[in-house]
């Protein structure tokens, strides 16, 4: 026991050591002279006839019953768990989680000084407010975990400073984090609007309204001037559709009798939206559509691997030659078909990119429904034009504010420490239960 105490340089809750008094008192009390248990018996004469009867009073003083011993050990383990032993050489380190709001409003300009050159963004301003606090935490040896909520899932990085790539707006518009789920001790919110967390901290940039483009329709751009929405014909920003793979054909060229080339449909959709066709992916690209390479299907067909499948959704139906290996199964599948081998993904969609496993339709029923269905898909997955930010994102969001978060409950390495406390508490509960059971058995006769 002395060696154990000597190896420990710290206790999470030193006052918990006072709890050792309880098992000590119980042990001392148990060692004192106890009156033996009195039991009525009709066979006393047998006990009287026994030879070698031992004077029991002296033994009563020395022996602690097993059930009481278990309870004493349980209380000792509980006292240890309460005190929270920490192994030597491992200082108490905390994990601080910084949740970064990556919604479009965070990347709007937020001037710090009127005469500043390139005004920083609201994000940069909020980070500046949080900097002293985070530097203090780093100096204490704590760990900083940077987190943001991407559409595909949470991204986290352990770093002394925010990853540089996070300082630029994501190409797609990300929603705000689910704040209520992140209201925990040890969490600092980096955002532009004031909120009311109970346990998390806040670094709020605030900021005045930032008028600017809010949307496009065809070639018309809509701007917000702070009070009204203005329609500016012919001033929509350049947007491009990039179609990769497939066979390049003229717009009205058809392959076989009744065949419909997807590329043709895509080009019609883009023209309707005022989107031009791009020859490569660049900053103006709002949607990339990937078709199977022109040689892939013929190669697969000659190898007997391409399938002619029937499929449909949204009140249209079609047949097509499909490369079953073009898309792997997984999340984001928008259209799939079934064959003898199971499900075959045909269309996978994500923000800014749509992948297809077929290039042309051999037969189509429900032309209008097909057009509506695919237009909805393409519109939904298209990225916003560069510079467009929704009006609610551009609105003013009050003054700046900073509030430190509550301290976290344990350190990252202290997940092992908290589990040590938990093991000790579990051991205490087990020992006490055993002692209780033995004690009841002793008296329930």
């Amino acid at each position, binding site marked *: 026991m002395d060696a154990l105490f000597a190896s420990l340089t710290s206790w999470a809750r030193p006052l918990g050591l006072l709890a050792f008094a309880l098992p000590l008192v119980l042990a001392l009390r148990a060692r004192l002279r*106890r*009156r*033996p*248990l*009195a*039991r*009525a*018996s*009709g*066979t*006393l*004469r*047998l*006990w*009287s*006839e*026994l*030879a*070698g*009867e*031992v*004077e*029991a*009073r002296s*033994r*009563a003083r020395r*022996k602690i*019953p*097993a*059930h009481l011993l278990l309870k004493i050990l349980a209380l000792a383990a509980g006292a240890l768990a309460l005190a929270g032993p920490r192994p030597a050489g491992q200082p108490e380190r905390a994990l601080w989680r910084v949740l970064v709001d990556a919604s479009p409003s965070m990347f709007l300009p937020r001037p710090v000084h009127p005469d500043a050159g390139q005004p920083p963004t609201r994000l940069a301003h909020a980070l500046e407010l949080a900097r002293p606090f985070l530097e203090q935490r780093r100096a204490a040896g704590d760990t900083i975990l940077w987190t943001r909520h991407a559409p595909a899932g949470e991204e986290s990085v352990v770093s002394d400073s925010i990853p540089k790539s996070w300082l630029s707006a994501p190409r797609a518009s990300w929603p705000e984090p689910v704040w209520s789920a992140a209201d925990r001790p040890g969490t600092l919110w980096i955002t532009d609007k004031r909120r009311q967390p109970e346990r998390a901290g806040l670094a709020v940039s605030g900021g005045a309204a930032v008028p600017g483009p809010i949307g496009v329709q065809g070639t018309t751009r809509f701007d917000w001037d702070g009070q009204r929405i203005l329609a500016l014909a012919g001033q929509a920003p350049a947007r491009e559709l990039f179609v990769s793979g497939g066979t390049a054909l003229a717009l009205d060229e058809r392959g076989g009798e009744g065949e419909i080339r997807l590329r043709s449909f895509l080009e019609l959709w883009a023209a309707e939206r005022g989107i031009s066709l791009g020859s490569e992916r660049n900053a103006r690209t709002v949607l990339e559509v990937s078709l199977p390479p022109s040689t892939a299907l013929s190669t697969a067909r000659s190898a007997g691997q391409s399938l002619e499948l029937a499929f449909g959704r949204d009140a249209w139906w079609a047949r097509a030659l499909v490369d079953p290996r073009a898309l792997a199964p997984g999340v984001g599948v928008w259209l799939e078909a079934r064959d003898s081998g199971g499900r075959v993904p045909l269309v996978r969609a994500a923000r800014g990119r749509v992948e297809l496993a077929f290039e042309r339709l051999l037969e189509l029923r429900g032309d209008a429904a097909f057009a509506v269905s695919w237009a909805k898909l393409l519109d939904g997955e298209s990225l916003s034009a560069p510079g467009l930010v929704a009006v609610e994102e551009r609105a003013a969001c009050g003054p700046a504010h900073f509030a430190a978060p509550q301290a976290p409950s344990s350190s990252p390495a202290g997940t092992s420490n908290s589990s040590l406390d938990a093991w000790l508490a579990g051991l205490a509960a087990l020992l006490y239960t055993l002692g209780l059971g*033995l004690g009841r*058995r*002793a*008296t*329930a*006769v």
Partner: protein
Amino acid sequence: MPWRRPSRRSTEAPLQAPGVVFPADFARRLEALDLRLIGARERCEGAGSAAFLGVGEEFVGYRPYRPGEDLRRLDWNLLARLDRPFVRVMRREAAQHWAVLLDASASMGVGPPGKLQRAAEVVAGICRVGLSAGAEVLVLASDPDTARRTASLRVRTKRDLARLLSFLCALRAGGASGSRQLAEAARAHTQVGRLFLCGDLFDVEPEELSGLARRGRELVWIQILAPLEWDPARALPGGEAVEWVDPESGERRTTALGQPALEAYARALEGRLAAWHQSTARHGIAFHSWSSARSFEDIVRAAFRA
């Protein structure tokens, strides 16, 4: 049965189960036991068993002949008259008067389960079986509060069973030397053909009861001990010191329940039971020793060798 935590500070050792409380389903269990023993009795009819009804034979009627039976049992007159085979059914003559002695001295309050509780259940079971066999049963219980130090009740029909249960419920373990007092009181009832004694039999020696033997009378001694008397090694944790208190004499002995003491006790108990078996066997008396943890049904069935 509720138990009370024995007091460590008091010099008293309160009796764990001094009274009798019949469970709610006791009447149903009595009936079930009786039916089972009736079935066993019918199987023994004419087969030479004296288990249920004592000595003597009585013609009770006819039943159809079953293939394979001894043809000497056929009633040839009936066969000639009816052209169908029947056999005569003989019933061993019931002993018409039974007596059941119940020791309710203070030591019978030891438990749990209480010895008096179990003994009272056994007495009720024996009475029920006796009534079904057509016997009249006298129940004698030791009672220190009466002048004769015994209380009695006579049951003649099954309608008297309710009175019997009330009588037994009113008993409370007390007094000393219950078996001796009962033996003394039973000597006056000379017409009893079958005599049962239920108690712990630690306040009497087997020879003291041999005076109850009569020609044509069957004697059955049923000894009931509490689990902590039957097997203290299992009932109490080892290593604990225990102050044993005789509830009748007040005598005390303190013993540490170490392994040697427990083994010595087991040998001593075994020796005493062996002595009882030998003595009762010599006099043709049936002797059974049970823990009160066993059910009354088991004890009654063994008493009638069913």
